């Protein structure tokens, strides 16, 4: 009996113990645990915004219109996509894209990487944008592009069908096309092609069949217009003749895009006989040679653009004739080729008269630009601790009214770089553009930027105030084959504060911080890869957010 009791007690205790242990909710130690690794870092990334010059919105961001960007130039072999795969052609339906330089190359001031970005989209005037990269880091490029059906201020355009060529490709009737007077300056541009002319494209192929001619004139009297300068900026590389290449700045008298295409899409480049081109310079145009507005008898150089090299070729110097009835100054000349034609005074910028903006500091009511003498290109580099949102610095020549702008946004935490030459001893205005709607929040006028070590630009406090939060976003991508592996990418990121999309810096190892976002406001963040724009919106309530997204199958192969 006693033995029985002992055995019963033992087994009862054992049963209670086993039940006790098993009743625990046992989870695997690796339940929901992922293998997380950082994507290999890419040292130089280029974020590109292709923006409609009129609407200021990225092309296709709301309409999904396709834009193609092909990259040429001496450095094109170093171009890779953001995952490191060699690639020179990109497509985007968002007006936003990014690419990178292979890690094997380190761009420096002494050995910069030169690229030509060729952007085209249906209904838009193609753009050839030369980009010089002279340091590692995240670079932002803004390319303004003209919608021929919604022209920006200061631009006029005309497109007409000019009939068919004969069987040998000769023009069968004279071609005469002129733009309507541009709204602000009342300037027109025109082209005359005589009958019997044979037209060839850049590869020597004869244009055949039905021809369409177009002229687009860009006035130098409008900000919207000058932003569309064919090379994206007035900081240019020129061939002054006999292959002497110089870097410097254009003071523009306006520019014109001439084009003829045939029914198979070939674009005219050369003519077997001379054609006549007519351009005008608006009254009030600043002549940097005379330091006064132009008058009859002034001399002005004419330049044509080589899209494949990103270089302006000197064509000829013209003497400005007497003004027409409106007061504008006509220029007539003949040529046997067409492209973008430019009326510009060129000034070489030597390293001695160029300053570098070493650092910018964003404070609540001002932006401080720290300058230093630099032997080389003029760089913008940001190291900002108290930024509220990305902002854009614009350098505007007071006399000529033309913009030299840093083609990108300056943002907190991220270094930002782009070439932005500003001539010494020329009065300029620096504008700070930011906020929603995007507007000028601060300006300063300077007589000579090169005489300063520091520039303080007072700004309005319109973007500050209310409850603000500093947030961190962690982004991880995964492949469908194995969702237990997460990859933290190194990619440019864009932010939309309910107003518009803005480049906001380079996300490193899947993490990026934003300062002073308005609590309770909706923000959308986006990253672009392989023509996919991955977006995620948050109403700002906490300080950290995690976002996971599925990588395209192509990337995971």
């Amino acid at each position: 009996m006693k033995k029985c009791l002992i055995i019963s007690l033992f087994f009862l205790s054992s049963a209670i113990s086993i039940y006790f242990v098993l009743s625990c909710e046992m989870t695997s130690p690796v339940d929901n645990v992922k293998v997380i690794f950082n994507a290999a870092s890419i040292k130089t990334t280029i974020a590109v915004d292709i923006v409609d010059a009129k609407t200021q919105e990225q092309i296709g961001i709301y309409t999904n219109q396709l834009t193609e960007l092909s990259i040429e130039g001496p450095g094109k072999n170093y171009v890779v996509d953001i995952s490191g795969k060699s690639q020179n052609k990109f497509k985007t339906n968002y007006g936003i894209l990014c690419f990178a330089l292979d890690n094997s190359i380190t761009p420096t001031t002494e050995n910069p990487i030169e690229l030509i970005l060729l952007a085209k989209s249906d209904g838009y005037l193609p753009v050839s944008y030369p980009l010089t990269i002279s340091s590692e880091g995240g670079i932002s490029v803004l390319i303004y592009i003209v919608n021929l059906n919604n022209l920006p201020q200061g631009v006029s355009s005309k497109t007409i069908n000019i009939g068919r060529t004969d069987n040998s490709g000769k023009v069968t009737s004279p071609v005469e096309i002129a733009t309507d007077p541009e709204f602000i300056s009342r300037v027109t541009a025109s082209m005359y092609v005589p009958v019997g002319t044979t037209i060839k494209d850049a590869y020597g192929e004869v244009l055949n069949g039905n021809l369409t001619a177009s002229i687009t004139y860009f006035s130098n009297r409008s900000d919207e217009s000058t932003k569309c300068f064919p090379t994206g900026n007035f900081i240019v590389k020129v061939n002054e003749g006999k292959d002497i290449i110089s870097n410097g700045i254009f003071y523009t008298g306006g520019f014109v895009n001439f084009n003829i295409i045939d029914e198979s899409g070939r674009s005219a480049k050369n003519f077997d006989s001379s054609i006549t081109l007519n351009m005008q310079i608006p009254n009030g145009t600043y002549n940097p040679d005379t330091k006064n507005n132009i008058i009859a008898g002034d001399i002005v150089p004419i330049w044509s653009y080589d899209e494949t090299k990103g270089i302006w070729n000197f064509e000829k110097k013209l003497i400005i004739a007497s003004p027409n009835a409106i007061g504008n100054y006509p220029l007539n000349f003949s040529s046997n080729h067409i492209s973008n034609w430019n009326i510009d005074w060129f000034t070489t910028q030597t390293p001695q008269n160029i300053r570098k903006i070493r650092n910018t500091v964003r404070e609540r009511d001002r932006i401080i630009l720290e300058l230093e003498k630099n032997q080389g290109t003029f760089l913008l580099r940001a190291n900002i601790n108290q930024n509220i949102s990305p902002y854009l610095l614009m350098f505007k020549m007071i006399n000529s009214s033309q913009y030299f702008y840093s083609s990108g946004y300056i943002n907190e935490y991220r270094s930002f770089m782009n070439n932005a030459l500003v001539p010494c001893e020329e009065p300029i205005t620096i504008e700070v553009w930011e906020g929603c709607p995007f507007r000028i929040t601060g300006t300063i006028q300077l007589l000579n930027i090169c005489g300063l070590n520091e520039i303080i630009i007072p700004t309005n406090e319109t973007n500050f105030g209310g409850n603000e939060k500093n947030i961190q976003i962690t982004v991880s991508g995964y492949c469908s084959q194995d969702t237990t592996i997460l990859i933290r990418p190194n990619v440019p990121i864009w932010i939309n504060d309910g107003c518009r999309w803005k480049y906001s810096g380079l996300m490193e190892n899947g993490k990026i911080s934003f300062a002073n976002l308005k609590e309770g406001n909706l923000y959308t963040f986006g990253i672009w890869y392989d023509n996919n724009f991955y977006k995620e919106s948050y109403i700002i309530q906490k300080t950290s957010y995690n976002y996971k997204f599925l990588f395209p199958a192509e990337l995971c192969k």
Partner: protein
Amino acid sequence: MKKKILPCLLLILFMAVPIYSQNYSVSVKVSTLGISLEGLRSFGEQINARIGMTYFLINIDGGGGTEDYLYNGNLKLLTLFTLMDWYLFKSNFRITSGLFFNLNEGDLILRPNGSHILGGIIYTPEMLGEISTKVKVNLLTPYLGFGLGNRSISEGFDFTMDVGVIYQGTPKVNLSAKGLLAPSAEQESLVEHNTKWFKFYPIISFGIIYNF
């Protein structure tokens, strides 16, 4: 303070204070904590005191081949303990409680096996690095259990067994990673959360005892 507890207990257990008939025993056991050696002294018919240690060490290497990872792990179980048996009904059945000085720990290192390609970049094992995990538990852990045997009534060999648990607390996980795998270490708190249930370590032991 904790350091002083164990020596004091040992001193009390083996003080030569004759209260009842006293016998000494030694036992060897196989348990869920490894091989166990212990010394025993009875304080009358209903009370025994025990001290001992357990030890177990295993090293595992694996992975490779078609596996994505190579791993190398070590499990070291080392405890020193002091226990008290209380016999019920003047029988062999007893309730046991006491304290374990718990030096158990495990570690595991995980390394990628071969290169991986993502986009245009080859990720070599050297670039990816490794993930290391170390798990420890509380140093002082109480024990409660029951068992059969250990009664030092007659000289010679006898059978003994124990069933019980030690309360070791939530395992402390230390996750670290090198190379590109570094962010994996951010999940330390998740792994710790997943092992939260493992506060009790089950003890089952069988062995033989020799009564002097």
